[in-house]
């Protein structure tokens, strides 16, 4: 990418984030449910209520509130959570790593599982097995992540309880972590007991989030691969005597992966959105779980902060996807 295109993207990202901030701000002010109403005493007088409202800066005119908030955000001050009474940025900093580890695990799982299924499907072209795989994949496509979460809780959790159902760590043995990135930290420290514990806790929510992704990737990638497999260059390679597996992996994959990659980017952001419910069900201490509490409590600064972070993540992911796509496409990476 050239310098101008980088500047360009950053400019776009800024505009997008501003838009996200504006929309969520306006949306939140029209949402019924008053954070103040939830915490006043039964014997409070109207004056008490007004004082409380002023305390949280909710008495100012909306545009003023918005610009104050915006000004603070520019200085990386996201305000203080009403319900948790701590800095929004600090809270997000604590929770986001959990969500990132979870979603990346789910991403890796989805890509691997989806990729393997897609490649297998292409190798099994025109066999009854292919139809069966397509059918199962179709079923999987119809199952949203929260239903997976339920099914996993009911089936695996109870009937075959090998994986823990809640949290991110075994609370009894949890050792102290210095960073919020438990998985990474435990690996870096070569503390395999902890790594095993963190991974075991990841399995269930990861499956719930990753299975729909795997299904989507399997379908898209398989379509693209099938298309690539009838290209002339694949034919030529086949004539040279390459095995089918090699044809798929060496000839078709890199050319077919483009649309899948873009789609994975989009799906990944959906998946981060999906953590809102899945983290809830598995009591996983991520940002999605916190988001529900924030909405229930009408914790305006916190919701605003979370949505903004989601937006920034979305942008970062998309830029990353573009960069990877560029790398993979020799047309763009060259010169």
């Amino acid at each position, binding site marked *: 990418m050239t310098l101008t295109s980088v500047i360009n993207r950053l400019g776009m990202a800024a505009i997008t984030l501003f838009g996200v901030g504006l929309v969520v701000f306006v949306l939140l002010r029209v949402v019924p449910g008053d954070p103040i109403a939830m915490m006043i005493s039964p014997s409070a007088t109207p004056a008490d209520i007004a004082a409380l409202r002023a305390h949280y800066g909710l008495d100012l005119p909306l545009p003023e509130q918005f610009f104050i908030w915006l000004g603070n955000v520019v200085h990386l001050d996201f305000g203080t959570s009403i319900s948790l009474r701590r800095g929004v940025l600090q809270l997000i900093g604590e929770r986001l790593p959990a969500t990132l580890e979870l979603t990346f695990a789910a991403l890796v799982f989805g890509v691997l599982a989806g990729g393997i299924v897609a490649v297998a499907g292409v190798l099994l072209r025109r066999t009854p097995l292919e139809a069966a795989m397509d059918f199962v994949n179709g079923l999987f*496509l*119809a199952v949203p992540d929260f239903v997976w979460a339920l099914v996993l809780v009911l089936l695996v959790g109870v009937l075959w309880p090998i994986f823990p159902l809640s949290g991110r760590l075994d609370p009894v043995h949890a050792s102290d972590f210095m960073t919020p990135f438990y998985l990474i930290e435990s690996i870096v420290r070569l503390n395999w007991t902890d790594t095993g514990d963190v991974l075991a806790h990841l399995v269930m929510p990861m499956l719930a989030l990753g299975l729909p992704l795997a299904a989507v990737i399997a379908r898209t990638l398989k379509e693209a691969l099938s298309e690539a497999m009838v290209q002339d260059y694949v034919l030529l390679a086949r004539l040279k005597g390459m095995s089918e597996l090699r044809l798929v992996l060496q000839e078709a994959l890199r050319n077919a992966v483009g649309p899948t990659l873009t789609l994975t980017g989009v799906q990944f*952001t959906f998946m981060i*959105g999906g953590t809102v*419910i899945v983290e809830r069900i598995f009591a996983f201490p991520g940002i999605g779980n916190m988001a529900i509490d924030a*909405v229930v409590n009408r914790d305006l600064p916190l919701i605003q902060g979370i*949505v903004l972070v989601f*937006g920034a993540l979305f*942008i970062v992911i998309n830029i990353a996807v573009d960069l990877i796509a560029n790398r993979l496409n020799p047309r763009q990476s060259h010169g």
Partner: protein
Amino acid sequence: MADVAIPAPRSAGHFRSLKPLLDESRVVLAGGFLIILALIAIFAPWIAPKSPLEQDLMMASLPPIGFEGYEPGYYLGTDDLGRDVLSRLIFGARIALTVALVAATLAGLVGSLLGLASGWYRGWTDRIVSRLVDIWMSFPPVLLSVLLVAVLGSGLSSVIIAIAIIDWTRFSRVVRAETLAQGGLDYVTAAESIGFSRRHILWREILPNVAPVIIALLSLEMGIAVIVEAILSFVGLSISSDAPTWGGMVAQGRQVLHESWWVLVFPLCSLFATVLAFNLLGNGLRKALDPVMRR
């Protein structure tokens, strides 16, 4: 004359594009299922054995016919309020299909219009729409829908509007790309060189060619709408009145799973089957409508 040996059309007249569709057995299956479902939904009051709202606490938690302790007349058993599961399923189909149809159509309408406009007129229209799409896509959809329903209040129309507001971007992006692609084809240049106005070209020349994509997307979106409704019901925010929604039934059935599994299993199956049917239909449509003309 050799040159007048006109190849026979693949099939007659306007139904030409139906033929490849009907060749896909999955599309036939999915379409058939949805048509039956639609009929059931339309004629729900005549088909349903009971009223979906009528509760009889004395008849609560009856198992489906054939299981121990069933009561005749309650084919799929009753829930913990003694309401007939089958009747609720049937009336639930009404809501599911209404949400699917109306929400998908709304989202499709808004998204397609914006996508067409930005893909065809480009320039500022495109820049603004694209930015709007970016902003929209940056919101986590579940959170946005929860907030939207909180703003709009719960109820059928709120759910529909929320889905449309969230999902128009899906259409806008795809339709824009397709419009851009179509706009580069020679038949568009031909229309320009004949002297048609840009608007005419958009509506009469490009739209018919983008339509299959929109139709396929619509079908997929209907499946998505059914899921979103279920998610909202699950979070407890969907249709408010005691209207029998599948998602609501799932949420309710989940709590009594070990006691009366049928309250959960049947709506879950209906949900799956419907989403699956919409997906199959959508993908079939995409495949069948798209390449016919581009050979």
